[in-house]
C-alpha cells in the first residue's frame, strides 16, 4: 500500500468534496475508508495498492471531474 496526497486547486463548492470522493472511490485498488478530502486545505489523501492503481489514475479522474491538480506526492506506508 502507498499513501497519496494530491494538492488541488482551491476547493470552494461544497459538493466538490463529494464528487472527488466518489471519483477516487471508483478507482480499482484504492482503499475506500482511507479516502479523505480536505476542504480547507484543498487536498485529497488516500491509500492505494500500487499493483492495481497508480497516482496517474487518480490525477486523471480528478482532471476529468474538472479540477486542477497542483502537486501530488506518493509515500510508502
Amino acid at each position: 500500500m502507498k499513501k497519496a496526497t494530491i494538492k488541488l486547486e482551491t476547493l470552494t463548492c461544497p459538493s466538490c468534496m463529494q464528487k472527488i470522493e466518489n471519483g477516487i472511490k471508483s478507482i480499482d485498488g484504492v482503499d475506500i475508508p482511507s479516502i479523505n478530502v480536505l476542504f480547507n486545505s484543498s487536498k485529497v489523501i488516500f491509500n492505494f495498492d500500487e499493483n492495481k492503481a497508480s497516482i496517474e489514475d487518480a490525477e486523471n479522474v480528478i482532471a476529468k471531474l474538472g479540477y486542477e491538480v497542483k502537486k501530488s506526492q506518493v509515500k510508502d506506508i
Partner: protein
Amino acid sequence: MILSRKNHITLMSLILIVTAFISKLGFGNTEIFLWALVIASVIGVAPIAIQAYQALRVKVVSIDVLVTIAVVGAFLIRNFEESAIVTFLFLFGAYLEQRTLNKTRSAIKELTEMAPESALKQMDNGEFEMVEVEEVDVGDILLVKTGAKVPVDGTVVTGEGHINEASITGESLPVTKKKDSKVFAGTILENGTLQIIADRVGEDTTFGKIIELVEEAQDSKSEAERFIDRFSKYYTPAVLVLSFIVWLVSRDIELAITILVLGCPGALVIGVPVSNVAGIGNGAKHGVLLKGSEVIRDFSRVDTIVFDKTGTLTIGNPKVVDHIIYSGNSDEVLSYLSSVEKESDHPLANAVVEYIGDTKTHLIEKTDVIKGGGIVAKIGGHRMVVGNVALMERENVTLNKKVREDISKMQSVGNSLVLASMDGELKVLMGIRDPIRPGVKKDLEKLKKLGVKNLVVLSGDNQETVDLVAKEIGLTEAHGHMLPYDKQDYIKELQAKGQIVAFVGDGVNDSPSLALAQIGIAMGNGTDVAIETSDVVLMNSDFGRLPHALGLAKATVNNMLQNILIAIGVVLILLVSVFFSEWMNMAIGMLVHEASILVVILNGMRLLGYKLR
C-alpha cells in the same frame, strides 16, 4: 476550457442581462431583450451543466445538477428572464465565495507559506550551492545568510547571529545563536551568518510538525459536521424527488423548478468548516494551536482548569533565596550537596546546583531517586539524604526545635524547602522560590469572567507554599504534596463529579495528566512532546494566551451555531414562502440562497479578527 473561463462568462452574462433590461425599459425593445437573455442563459448554464454532468458520472447529485435542471426547465417554459438571472447569480455567487473563502483561510495559508523552500548546501567540493529544501538530508552542512530562512532544524557549527523565532514560538524578540545553539526551520536570521548541520528535515522539523498539525486541524470534523455531511448526501437527491412530486401533483413547472433552486444546501455544508478554519487560523496567528473542531467544542465547555505549578503558574526557574547551615564545614557540605544534586534534573535540584556554583566534585558511589521525596546517595563514604521534610522523617533524620522553627518560617513566606543530611544528621536547609509569572493574576480573572468556575493548582510542594500562591493569584483551590499519580487521581475524581477538566502543564513530567484531562493544554516552547501529547498548545510558554485561547474556542463554537441556524433558517423560510407567498420566484430564491452562503462566510471571517476584550 469553458470552466476556466467561468469569470469571463459571469461578466458577459451580466452585460447581456443589463443590456436586455436597458433595451426593454429604456427603448421598449422586447426583441433585443429576449435574445440577450437567451444568450445569457445559454452561456451561463454551460459551465454549470458541465459540472453537473461530471458530478452525475460519479453518482453525485450536486447543486449544479439541481440548478441545471431548474434553468433548463425555465428555458422550456420560456421564462428567459429567470433562467438568465439564476445562472448569473449562481456563477457570481461562486466567484464571491471563492474570494471570501480564500480570506478565511488566509491566516493558515500565511503560516504554511513561511515554510522554507531552498537551502545553501555544502557540496562535495566544499562550495555552497542553492538547492531545493527537499534535497537536504540529515547531516548536511548548510549556510544561512542574513535575511534568509533557516531551512531545517539543526545545530550551529560556526558563526554567530540573531534569529527571529516568531514562526515557532510567537516571540518576536531575536535570539542570539552561536556555536552549538539549536536553530529551527522557518525562523529568520536577522543578522550574522551561520553554518549549521541538519538534525531534522522536512516534516520532522518542529515547524513541519506545526504545519501538519494546523493543516489537519482545519479540516478535522466534529460529530455535527459529519452528520451534516451524511445528511447532505441524501438531501440534494431528496430535493430533486420533492420537486418532481410537486410537478406531478400540481403540473406547475414554475413551482417545481423554484423548489429545485431553493433547496440548494450550500450554506449548511459550508458554514461549519469556515468557522473552524477561521478560528484555528486566528489561534495560529496568536500563538495558540487548537487541534481541530472537536477540541474547540470540548474546550469551550470547560468549567474546571487544573494547573501544574512549577513552570506553568511560575516561571519555572527556581532560585535559592535563603539557606542555613547547621553544622560542619560549610564548603565541604555544600560541595557534597552540589555533587548529589547534579544527579537530578529536578528544578529544585538545578536551583541548588546553580546557587552553590563552582565547587569540588565528589565521586558518587550510589544514588536512589525517591519519587516525590528527593535523593538518597552514597558519597565519599557518607550516606547523604537530600530532599523534602517527609523524606527526612522517613530516613529518621532528627529535626530539632530550632530546625522546625526555621522550616515553618521559610514555608510561611512561600519558599519550597530542600534539606540535606549526612549520616543521619541535618546539615543544610535551603529555601527556594520560583517567581510567579507576571500577569498570571489578571489572566486567571479573565478565565473566571469567561465562565470557568474552578481554578485549581496541584503541586508537589508543601501545602503552605501552594496555599500562599493560590491566595496571591486568586485560585479557588490548592493542593500540595501531590505526586504525579496523585494529580491523575485528582483529575479522575473531578471528572467523576461531571466536571469538564482542562489541565495546563509544561508537558515534560505531566504528560499523563495532559492526556487524561478532556483538554490537555501544553505550555510549549517548541518541544515535540508538548506539541504531540496535548490538545491545545500555547506557543513560547506564554500563559497570557490562555484566556485568548478559551475565548476563541467559545467564539468559534458560537460562530458555528450561528452559521447552522442561518443556513437552516434560510432554507425553511424559502420553502415556506414558495408555498405561501406571491413574491417568491426562482431568481429571488437564488439571490437569497447565494446571499446566505456569503453571510455564513463573512460571519466566519469575523473570527479572524477575534480579540478577547
